[in-house]
């Protein structure tokens, strides 16, 4: 009897636990991007800063060719190599911004959702204040005032993600803090810290994990926006910076669309993958919740 139960259970699980082909495609793309970002200096890429002037082709920018897959920009620099290098800063900023947001906002959210009372009132007020700032304006303001390094840009974007992340963490925590299993843990003598980490966090992590991917997508786009305005990381190549370079005043976008097109394509595919994967993950875990 137990064997029939087992096989039935397994079939159910297989039917439920499908994330789909699209999800894995997105994950593959993201893994590729992470790989590129991690190992850019080691990859056999052309130098992103050298000028590949070719007298036979006349004045740069050169169109995509065998030699320069994504073409070159106006200074005859290889767009493919630059785009790959751009992945590094864009993804780092996206990742560290959302990590900072999760560490700070998530912690505040979980604590205020669990303890309620005055802690909750204070932190909710802080969240509302943060949310009522137009985020892009705040980011522009901060980045134009301070030195724009990888760290500061990440922190500014992280600051903007504190409130949305914190509010979701708070709501998710409240939902679980009232469940009887928390009371059950209390009545066996568990401490608050133990309850938060062992009982509530694993439950809250499920809705939060999909938000992490969606939030990273937003952070990558925001970084692109800042870079487009010339307000992102100063030393280094970012996707937003590349897009801006290809769309400056002198009709570059019309004459040499490839300069911006390829960075845009990379940014688009990466953000799409993050969003799609995050969304699939959310519905996937929702289904699991419902069977409980």
């Amino acid at each position, binding site marked *: 009897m137990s064997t029939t139960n087992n096989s039935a259970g397994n079939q159910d699980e297989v039917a439920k636990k499908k994330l789909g082909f699209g999800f894995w495609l997105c994950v593959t793309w993201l893994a590729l991007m992470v790989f590129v970002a991690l190992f850019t200096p080691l990859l056999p890429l052309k130098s992103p800063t050298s000028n590949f002037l070719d007298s036979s082709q006349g004045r740069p920018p050169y169109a995509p060719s065998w030699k320069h897959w994504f073409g070159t920009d106006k200074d005859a620099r290889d767009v493919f190599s630059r785009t790959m290098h751009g992945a590094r800063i864009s993804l780092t900023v996206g990742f560290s911004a959302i990590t900072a947001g999760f560490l700070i906002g998530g912690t505040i959210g979980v604590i205020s959702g669990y303890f309620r009372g005055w802690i909750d009132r204070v932190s909710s007020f802080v969240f509302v204040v943060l949310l009522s700032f137009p985020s892009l304006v705040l980011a522009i303001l901060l980045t134009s005032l301070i030195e724009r390094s990888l760290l500061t840009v990440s922190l500014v974007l992280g600051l903007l993600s504190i409130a949305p992340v914190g509010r979701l963490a708070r709501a998710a925590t409240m939902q679980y803090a009232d469940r009887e299993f928390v009371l*059950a843990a209390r009545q066996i*003598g568990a401490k608050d810290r*133990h309850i938060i980490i062992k009982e509530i966090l694993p439950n809250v992590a499920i809705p939060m994990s999909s938000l992490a991917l969606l939030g990273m997508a937003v952070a990558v786009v925001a970084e692109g926006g800042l870079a487009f305005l010339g307000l992102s990381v100063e030393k280094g190549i970012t996707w937003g910076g590349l897009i801006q370079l290809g769309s400056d005043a002198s009709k570059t976008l019309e004459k040499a669309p490839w300069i911006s097109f390829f960075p845009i394509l990379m940014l688009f595919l990466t953000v799409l993958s993050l969003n799609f994967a995050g969304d699939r993950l959310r519905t996937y875990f929702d289904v699991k919740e419902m069977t*409980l």
Partner: protein
Amino acid sequence: MSSAAPDRNEVEPLIETVELRTHFRTPRGIARAVDGVTLQIRRGQSLGVVGESGSGKTVLSRSIMGLLPRNGVIREGSVRYGGEEIGNRTPKQMRSIWGREMAMVFQDPMTSLNPVMKVGKQVTESLRLHLGMSSSEAMAVAEKIFRDVRIPEPTRRLNQYPHELSGGMRQRVMIAIALACGPNMLFADEPTTALDVTVQAQILDLLSEQIRDRNMSMLLVTHNLGVVAGYTDEIAVMYGGKVVERAPTKVLFSNVKMPYTEALLQSIPRMNQPSHSRLAMIPGRPPDLVNPPTGCRFAPRCAYARDVCVREEPPLVQAETPDHTFACHFPVGSAEYHERRVELNRASTTTAEVL
């Protein structure tokens, strides 16, 4: 604890509350969920607390244990455990008692188990916390407890998540968690309400068997008098935050004093009644705990109430048999009760004739 002389245990109750009050601050005012409850539970004895929804029975069990919400609670009166006052302890101070000395089984095993944690881990948590066991030691103990509570294939079950278990199995897991550290006092808060009828008796049998084997005391909260009948030594009937009648189980069923208890007994469906006969019910609603009625709280719904019942609150008085107390001006069997009974019978027969 266990080294205390047995005769002393006979005399001194394990749990004793004196005038315990638990009030909640609500937007409408102060809700008196538990309003002056005095009771004792001796070692090895089980007490059933019976009442309608909102009678304060669940809050009573949680107040004794000190498991109340953080905010908006006023708790007064005394709770003594093994002769020691614990009513004024903070949750921090209660932690050493929770799990080790007293534990609780909740109503709904669906929500009282953590959905993302393997049940084995949930059982071993308190063992590691209180007894400082290593995880392998704790697992071995957990497996033994799973056997005690009759969970088949305990080794496999320990590695499963709550959603992989049936409702009855989940409640067995909850009982295993409560028993893990060998507490002296078990609170069972409607442990069978969320379960299938066929499983209810099994769970209650299991509970009473474990209580007996481990010489524990139990406070069984339920709204079903039928449930407590076979499984408790004593019954306390609660109404509107107060205990209105208390007696040894057998005495209560044979010699009811309080009309409310009588009405509760009459509203249990009986096997020997002809089918489709109308079930007796208590008219009206439970009292508003924010503005409770003056006098006897049951008076507005009581068929035997007179003017004095609305004006004066009846005190808890001793019945003719020992250990039997009740709060009623005109208890079942009194002259006034019979007089009204005759009137009521006459009225119902006349309506029947008219119909």
